[in-house]
């Protein structure tokens, strides 16, 4: 780093205007960002990335994007929602456009309790804290629990947005393996024991038990009490993130972990998938002590969340057939899941394996040995298809042998075309890796090789 404060754009000899051939002047460096030396250590990873650059292309309509997890908002009754919003402002404007409480609108919190009842949760509105999507709830939880260096346990892979939040609070993330039935209790137990032996401060287990992002798997009913028992025994808080819980395709919603342990679990919910992410309304339900701190932390962060958005959701729950709308979404996403699984089965080259989700938005695909999903992404973009490389879902740099595919947004015909393009990309990359793999072994020396122990396209019971 330079010893003097950097000055953006500074130059010391304007005589250079006539060309570089003039006298050599004294030149001071510029870092462009005058504040470059002042950022907190936690900002160190906030840099431009090739992957983000590629995603900027993926947003173009020419590309079939199997990358983003955007809900299919077009399926909402937009006219009715629009009319409802207009009436809301006309009739309750002084409240809807005013500051509200940091805990959230009481009427909405009642509605949230009704929604959670579908997953076996009996909560009181006073236990609910409304947040800007469940992402803000994650941030608030990290804020009140994590000191730099604390450990957070989570599935491997895990939700990229949670990993980003934990990283910004300088947590150490330790991944616990999953298989087709979700988090493996024995592995969790072993991990907790190992970390205790190392005298690590483990603050909580973060888990997405239903229709996991990105893995697409669900923690089985048999394992749910096992996971809770292990955490109770270890005195470990569970943070249950459940944005997809109501979007199951084949059965009634799974019973939430919180429903069976209201003292040891913080539950995070969201309307982003069942109504609309643009409204940014989610929530946390937590034991009283945690809830009080979450409210104070929310107040410090944002004073209060959008009153208008909260009242819109409350009104939507009260006046619109939201259960039927969730059913519309479920059927729509099931058709798209079917299109994706059918296309994957028909065209993907040998050596690829993938999960078969029973709800939610995502399929987690393992590439043939030696392929790296991150370095393959430019080839995919050139072939007009996008996915998310697996490395984003691990805090430890692993996951290069996997990628996430989402089926929630593109229509079935586009999904089939996207998978067809992806199969060609994988075929071409396999050929390149075969060419260079002989030199450095599978993976071309880039690491990220995975245990090739999956039993078939369904993933069997092997680890993800």
């Amino acid at each position, binding site marked *: *780093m*330079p010893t003097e404060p*950097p000055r953006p*754009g500074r*130059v010391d*000899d*304007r005589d*250079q*205007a006539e*060309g*570089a*051939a*003039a006298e*050599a*002047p004294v*030149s*001071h*460096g*510029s*870092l*462009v*960002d005058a*504040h*470059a030396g002042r*950022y907190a250590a936690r900002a160190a990873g*906030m*840099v*431009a*990335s*090739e992957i*983000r*650059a*590629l995603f*900027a*292309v993926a947003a*173009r309509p*020419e*590309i079939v994007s199997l990358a983003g997890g955007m809900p299919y908002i077009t399926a909402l009754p937009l006219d009715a929602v629009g009319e409802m919003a207009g009436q809301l402002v006309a009739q309750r404007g002084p409240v809807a456009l005013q500051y509200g409480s940091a805990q959230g609108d009481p009427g909405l919190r009642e509605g949230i309790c009704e929604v959670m009842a579908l997953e076996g949760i009996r909560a009181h509105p006073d236990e609910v804290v409304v947040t800007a999507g469940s992402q803000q709830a994650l941030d608030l939880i990290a804020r009140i629990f994590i000191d730099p260096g604390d450990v957070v346990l989570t599935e491997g892979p895990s939700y990229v947005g949670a990993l980003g939040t934990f990283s910004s609070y300088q947590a150490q993330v330790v991944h616990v393996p999953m298989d087709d039935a979700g988090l493996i209790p024995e592995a969790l137990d072993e991990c907790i024991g190992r970390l205790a032996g190392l005298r690590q401060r483990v603050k909580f287990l973060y888990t997405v038990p239903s229709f996991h992002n990105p893995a697409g798997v669900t923690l089985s009913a048999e394992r749910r009490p096992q996971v809770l028992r292990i955490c109770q025994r270890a005195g470990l808080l569970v943070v249950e993130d459940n944005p997809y819980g109501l979007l199951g395709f084949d059965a009634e919603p799974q019973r939430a972990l919180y429903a069976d342990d209201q003292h040891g679990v913080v539950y995070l919910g969201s309307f982003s998938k069942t109504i609309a992410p643009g409204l940014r309304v989610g929530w946390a339900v937590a034991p009283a002590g945690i809830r009080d701190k979450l409210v104070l932390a929310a107040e410090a962060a944002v004073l209060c969340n959008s009153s208008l958005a909260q009242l819109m959701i409350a009104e939507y729950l009260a006046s619109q057939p939201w259960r039927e709308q969730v059913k519309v979404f479920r059927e729509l996403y099931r058709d798209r899941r079917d299109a994706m699984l059918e296309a994957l089965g028909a065209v993907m080259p040998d050596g690829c394996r993938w999960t078969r989700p029973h709800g939610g938005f995502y399929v987690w695909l393992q590439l043939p040995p030696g392929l*790296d999903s991150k*370095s*393959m*992404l*430019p*080839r995919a*973009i*050139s072939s007009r298809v996008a996915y998310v490389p697996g490395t984003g879902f691990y805090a430890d740099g692993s996951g290069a042998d996997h990628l996430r595919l989402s089926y929630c947004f593109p229509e079935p015909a586009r999904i089939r075309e996207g998978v067809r393009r992806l199969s060609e990309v994988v075929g071409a*990359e396999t*050929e*390149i*890796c075969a*060419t*260079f*793999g*002989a*030199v*450095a072994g599978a*993976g*071309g*020396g*880039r690491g990220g090789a995975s245990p090739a122990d999956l039993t078939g396209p369904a993933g069997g019971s092997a680890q993800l």
Partner: protein
Amino acid sequence: MSDLGQVLILAGGLSPEREVSLRSGARLRDALREAGVDADTADADAGLIPAIAADPPSAVFPAIHGASGEDGSIQEVLTLLGVPYIGAPPEACRFAFDKPVAKAIARSAGLVTPPSVTLPREIFHDLGAAAVLERITATLGLPLFIKPARGGSALGASRVSRAEELPGAMIACFAYGDTALIEQCVPGTEIAVGVIDLGGGPEALPAVEIRPLTGSYDYAARYTPGQTEFHVPARLSPAEAKAAASAAITAHCALGLRDLSRTDLIVSDGKVFFLEVNVAPGLTETSTLPMALEAAGLSLGTVCRDLLSHAAARGT
């Protein structure tokens, strides 16, 4: 307002440099508006040709980076549409965008360029990658720079210091294109020299010295403010500065470029090495051409306004 009429900046495109191009385009639009020009941006998509046909701009500034923007494609289309544009004609763009071709032309014009080989991926498959790579390292030594023969922003490019890193670097490179340029890594001062021609012949702008704080001048170092230290003008001896300016002008002329370009060079022990040339240089906050203009006491908006006027007067 200037009497130039309405001008159009093309930004975006579908190359991996889309985001950079959008930022370049937005910055240029603001600079031109500040200079009194009625400027707007448009993406290179299915709406472009009907829009230009319906309301032809007085001149176009192609600020699309990477393929289609820099390989001559957009320039061909603009020629077909009969719209004046800034920058090199299609054929010159094709030569400039292809790094090995540009190196060959620069060499034939008397410039020195680091020893390199250019190989398509098939050759590694057909002859065996191990044998080919071994021959490359035996001949060129290490470290090496591996980069896609066509492309920019260091995407797919990597510096390789150990032989075992080569296969991974080749795979990463071939994800961006089917031909790789494998170049000897010449130690020295990395500089970028902008060239502008406002009608009186090409002139070199002050050289910008590029010093990434960690590692190489990769995508993150290019587009994250604070990751790279820039010295304008570059810390060169008068003789080196003169040689660098002359090399940039030589490359600009030899490749048949027009209006503006940016040449990337390495200055090593008083010797100037040509690396590559760009016909649509980046214009973002961290790009070197705007820094060089500022160092020359020129403003991006007025220079580009004058270049556009020049292009409009020139016609197609």
